């Protein structure tokens, strides 16, 4: 029991914060189940002493099976189309499933279930069904050449495929950036009665540590957050790119340029008012996006600002994406792939030339 009136806070990593969100929500509602490949691990081997052997590829679901049992924590075979489809059917019939797709690169295996089934059910059925489905999936790479897990995973395990999800009406797509908003957005996603996709950056999992309230709380879906106030330029970041923006902003501050950093957090529905309001004050915009540029979120945000706030702009909008290439394997190539602070700084300095 907590006696203090002040909400207790503890320090967690990004992955631990998500784990806590899942755990607290599963305690609250017995209709929440979680399924995915190796989310517990060693399925069916309890008689040999193997329980909770894996905990998900990034260990985010570690310990859930010991608390909630195999009926609510389901290791699946390699059947993304099958188990995402089962989650859709279960969501239509009384459960609130949370599905883990190991990496966003694998959504091709279940894309129909996401874009034709989950996204459209409520609308095309005339509002008669709710679809309380959460899809969690890991994305991204780091590009610093270190040979740790995930970096150097090549073209099919390193992508940032969120624009192809944000494009679909009916889906909510969120990209947390800190332990705090990871927990709060995960809880909001679970409590939403429609489908929500959470993209979790692989290299924030252990790296992004921070204070997290112990109790359950919601970070609202559909709201961007100004994470660093500034007056000279708006830097919009998504997921890990928000941290790159903050790094760049610190360097720019040393050169007397005060950058405001907006963490987009929800890609769809996008919080246009917060972005437009920021740009109307700073009159300059750089959008940083780890996805490839064609039909990307960066260009979508740029287009919206150009349409609705053109008169405020003192310089052309700049978007920085990964290049229009697959993610390369060799560390030396990958290091050039992911957007870096130096690119942001160069783009901003050009605006002040």
């Amino acid at each position, binding site marked *: 029991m907590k006696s203090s009136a002040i909400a207790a806070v503890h320090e967690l990593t990004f992955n631990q914060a998500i784990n806590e969100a899942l755990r607290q929500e599963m305690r609250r509602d017995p209709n929440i189940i979680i399924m995915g490949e190796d989310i517990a691990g060693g399925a069916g081997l309890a008689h040999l002493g193997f329980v909770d052997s894996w905990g998900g590829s990034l260990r985010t679901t570690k310990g859930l099976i010991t608390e909630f049992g195999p009926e609510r924590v389901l290791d699946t075979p390699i059947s993304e189309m099958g188990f995402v489809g089962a989650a859709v059917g279960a969501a239509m019939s009384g459960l609130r499933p949370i599905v883990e797709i190991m990496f966003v690169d694998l959504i091709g295996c279940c894309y129909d279930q996401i874009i034709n089934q989950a996204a459209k059910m409520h609308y095309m*059925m005339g509002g008669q069904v709710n679809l309380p489905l959460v899809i969690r999936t890991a994305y991204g790479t780091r590009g610093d050449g270190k040979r740790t897990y995930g970096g150097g995973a090549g073209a099919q395990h390193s992508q940032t495929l969120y624009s192809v999800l944000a494009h679909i009406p009916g889906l909510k797509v969120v990209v947390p950036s800190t332990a705090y908003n990871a927990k709060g957005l995960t809880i909001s996603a679970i409590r939403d009665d429609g489908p929500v996709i959470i993209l979790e950056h692989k290299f924030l999992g252990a790296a992004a540590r921070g204070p997290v309230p112990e109790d359950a709380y919601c970070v609202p879906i559909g709201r961007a957050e100004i994470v660093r106030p500034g007056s000279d330029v708006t830097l919009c970041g998504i997921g890990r790119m928000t941290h790159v923006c903050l790094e760049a902003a610190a360097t720019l501050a040393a050169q007397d340029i005060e950058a405001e950093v907006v963490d987009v957090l929800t890609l769809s529905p996008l919080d246009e008012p917060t972005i437009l309001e920021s740009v109307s004050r700073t009159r300059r915009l750089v959008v940083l996006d780890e996805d490839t540029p064609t039909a990307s979120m960066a260009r979508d945000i740029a287009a919206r600002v150009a349409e609705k706030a053109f008169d405020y702009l003192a310089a052309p909008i700049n978007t920085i994406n990964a290049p229009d290439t697959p993610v390369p394997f060799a560390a030396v190539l990958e290091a050039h792939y992911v957007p870096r602070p130096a690119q942001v700084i160069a783009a901003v300095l050009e605006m002040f030339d």
Partner: protein
Amino acid sequence: MLQTTTKPQTRTHFEMTCLRPSRDQLVWMYDRMTLIREFEERLKWLVETGAPVGAVHYYTGQEACAVGVCAALEPTDWIASTHRGHGHCIAKGVEVHRMMAELYGKVTGTNRGKGGSMHITDVSVGMLGVNPIVGMGVTHAVGAALSAKVRHTSQVAVAFFGEGAASSGAVHEAMNLAAIWKLPVVFVCENNRYSQSTPVEYAVADPEIAHRAAAYSMPGVTADGQDVIAVWAAATAAIHRARSGGGPSLIECKTYRYYGHHQGDDTRRYRTREEEEAARARDCIKRFREQVLTDGSLLLEELDAIDRKNKEKLDLAVIFAEQSPLPDPAELYTDVYVTEPQ
């Protein structure tokens, strides 16, 4: 008696082992088969006279499959359907006037005019949706069965699919999941021999779809899909097994669609007149009438009265659909999200 369109109660164990439907069940089967037939025939006439009903896939000829299976289900059980779904809807209890209004794109339709023929849904009667992405509905039935198992209800889910869907990965994945998790689901393959124009002998390595049950460690049986009582008997056994915790089963119903794949398809491009006539000679409604009249279980006047009642139902359904209001243009923007963004 003739007003009986609500479904009779589940059979007792004794009735089930005898595998003979009760008199009430026979009346219900005839009522539903002829209601489906009348719906599709009326719809065909509407399409051919230019009614604005969108793309449709007639179920005519396969009525015994949907009705035989649904006769063995409870109202609280679930079904998931295919693009050729009108028959499944009617058999599970969706009201024909709301279906017809949906086809007309009216706000009184099952889906408020936002679905059309290929998305008719009525969860209030356990109908999880017509689904035109072939094979996907099968995974949703598996999900409903998972829901029943986790929530500890005694519900069963039925996945209707065609022999065309049987080649899709979704169906294989769904069967494997259902088998490893021992879910209360029955897979019902309506093998009407053609996916659009492609015959099953060409498209499926083993055209006996029931055989594949062995690969998923579940029972697989073949039923005569033109015999509603045979389908009912197979479904009754499979549903009993599912409801009592025995896991999934597969039933293959050998059947035939009388018309083309969709309203604009001329079957003479890929089927012979002889083959079609042979199939029609085994018409499920005609055979049912002969059987129940010969063995005296139902009377001619009863059957004719059901025919008349269902024709009137369709008269009223078309009037309802034609006279119903269109959706307000503002409905374009409603129900995109379940929980509206804050």
